[in-house]
């Protein structure tokens, strides 16, 4: 196996996803002249930035054998806090950024600590924190409120050629996390813990500390997504995160990462995010209502998972 394939965790299924992307693209082009225009493709990219970042966070957690359902509450709270503090100057913006980063990391670390040290199932832990955070966000404000400096709002809408700044950030984050997974001991530990936690512990890895770090990183990435979303909206929406908990899981699974942990990587996730965004866009051009897009998404999950279920063998 070549080093590149190992480093990117490329799998045969990624070719399937790539082929599907190509098919969707061709179908999109034939169905409308406006599909392959820079304007539309820019829109597609804008639409996938937030999900791409959150799915990246979820990928890391799932690789370690966990799951993070706290995004719904966490994104909402961070968005509200950010918009409340960001004001309209660079100074207040940086203060808000610092606070949001600290909150994201801190809340993630709490998720990790409850999971690792108390032993509560991550699904329950993060479901609990998500509920609490959603409540906190609504306690701060029931209606979208606050603001961000205009230059920050402009920045989130900015483009470099056909690449939105948000997309550049996504690419940078994926490269960075991919690099972390391949070249740092932290990355190796994520895979080791996800593959077999008991064996990782016997091997002398600090399993509990690593888990705290994993969820903290997940919270950190959420902070980035929350700031981007708030910048796009221009206000802090106390329901900004609704749905992101479950939506973040689909691309991870479709990208070939096993829910059981230990296998997969960020390459699959980013390909799946692109596929899902293009598919939604294409269906819009074909005047297929979003209702059928839901059906498609559910069937894609089942197809993807059935594809991988064979690898696990019999129960």
């Amino acid at each position: 196996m070549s080093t590149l394939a190992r480093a990117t965790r490329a799998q045969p299924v990624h070719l399937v996803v790539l082929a599907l992307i190509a098919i969707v693209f061709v179908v999109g082009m034939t169905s409308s002249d406006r599909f392959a225009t820079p304007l539309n493709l820019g829109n597609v990219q804008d639409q996938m930035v937030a999900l791409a970042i959150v799915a990246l966070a979820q990928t890391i957690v799932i690789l370690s054998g966990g799951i993070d359902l706290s995004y719904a509450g966490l994104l909402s709270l961070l968005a509200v806090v950010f918009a409340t503090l960001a004001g309209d100057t660079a100074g207040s913006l940086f203060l808000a950024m610092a606070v949001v980063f600290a909150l994201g990391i801190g809340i993630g670390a709490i998720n990790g600590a409850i999971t690792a040290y108390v032993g509560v199932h991550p699904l329950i832990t993060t479901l609990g924190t998500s509920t609490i955070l959603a409540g906190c966000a609504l306690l701060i404000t029931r209606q979208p409120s606050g603001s961000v400096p205009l230059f920050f709002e402009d920045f989130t809408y900015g483009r470099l050629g056909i690449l939105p700044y948000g997309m550049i950030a996504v690419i940078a984050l994926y490269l960075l996390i991919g690099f972390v997974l391949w070249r740092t001991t932290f990355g190796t530990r994520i895979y080791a813990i996800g593959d077999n936690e008991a064996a990782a512990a016997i091997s002398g890895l600090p399993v509990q500390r690593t888990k705290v770090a994993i969820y903290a990183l997940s919270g950190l990435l959420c902070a980035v997504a929350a700031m981007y979303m708030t910048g796009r909206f221009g206000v802090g929406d106390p329901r900004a995160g609704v749905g992101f908990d479950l939506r973040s899981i689909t691309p991870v699974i479709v990208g070939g990462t096993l829910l059981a942990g230990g296998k997969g990587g960020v390459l699959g996730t980013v390909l799946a995010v692109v596929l899902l965004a293009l598919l939604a866009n294409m269906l819009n051009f074909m005047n297929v209502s979003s209702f059928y897009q839901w059906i498609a998404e559910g069937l894609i999950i089942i197809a993807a998972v059935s594809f991988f279920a064979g690898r696990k063998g019999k129960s």
Partner: protein
Amino acid sequence: MTATATNIRVKPNRNTVRATQRRELLMLLGFLVVIWAVTTALSPRFLSPANLKDILIQAAPLGFVVIGQMIVIIVRGLDLSVASIMATVAVLSTSLIDVTPLIFAVGLLLGALIGAVNGYLVAYRNVTPFLATLATMIVLQGIRFAYTGGAPGGSLPETFRFLATGSVFGIPVALIALAVTAFAMHWLLERTIFGRRLKLFGDSPEAAFMTGAPTKLLQVMAYVISGVMAALAGLFLVGYVGIVDNWTGRGYELDSIAAAVIGGAALSGGKGSVPGVLLAALILVSLFNIVVILGLSIELQLVIKGTLIILAAAVYMKRSQS
């Protein structure tokens, strides 16, 4: 009296599996009594019969769902599709027919069918319960919206409304239905071979298989029960609200998991009781009522609920470790 007979007499022991479960149940009951007492002390209005009746009626749909959710959790599963089943069943069956018994018949059948699909994916296709039911949830959502074009209409028959809001001898019909269902499910779980096998399967799927349990069938049946329970809950909920909505039951998937966990079901399987999860459902619904009665910010109940989920799970975890 022979020596053998004396030995066979079972002496009480506080560490038995049953004694442990009984203590957990008492713990829940104690907690419910405490929050009710504190609320009553702050606002006597809370303990009025009308308010209590309100709480109970509101708790009924969650009660149905959580029983099904618990049974799925007992077989090491999870059902994220319950809320979607509630809405889909309510939308489809009320729009197809307007005769109350038939609405129920079609609805329960539909719930069973969807549950069977979940069970098939989990038991026969080796799909993780989380993903199987997540996919079902999304697909059902699409089907329901596509069918209604986004805006469900249709009126509910009078008898249907009565079932959900009416009373017989002062007892709400919904509660009678829940009580009957709860007794039936409790009996099924504790007193039949099927129920014991569900729990044994959750304790150790491998050992259950080797002792001759029909493991795949057990899993499918668990999801079917959950589907039927969700269908019942959906019908009673629209009957109570009076409007059929595409988002009927929204949030019940997470609330039912929360109530199941607080009520003593463990995601690792094999553990859970009908009285336990019903008490937990009552606690969750009471919280909502308490926040309103005390004039607190309504969002506070989310914060309390989340804290409760984590605390309960942590307490059960610590107890099982010691």
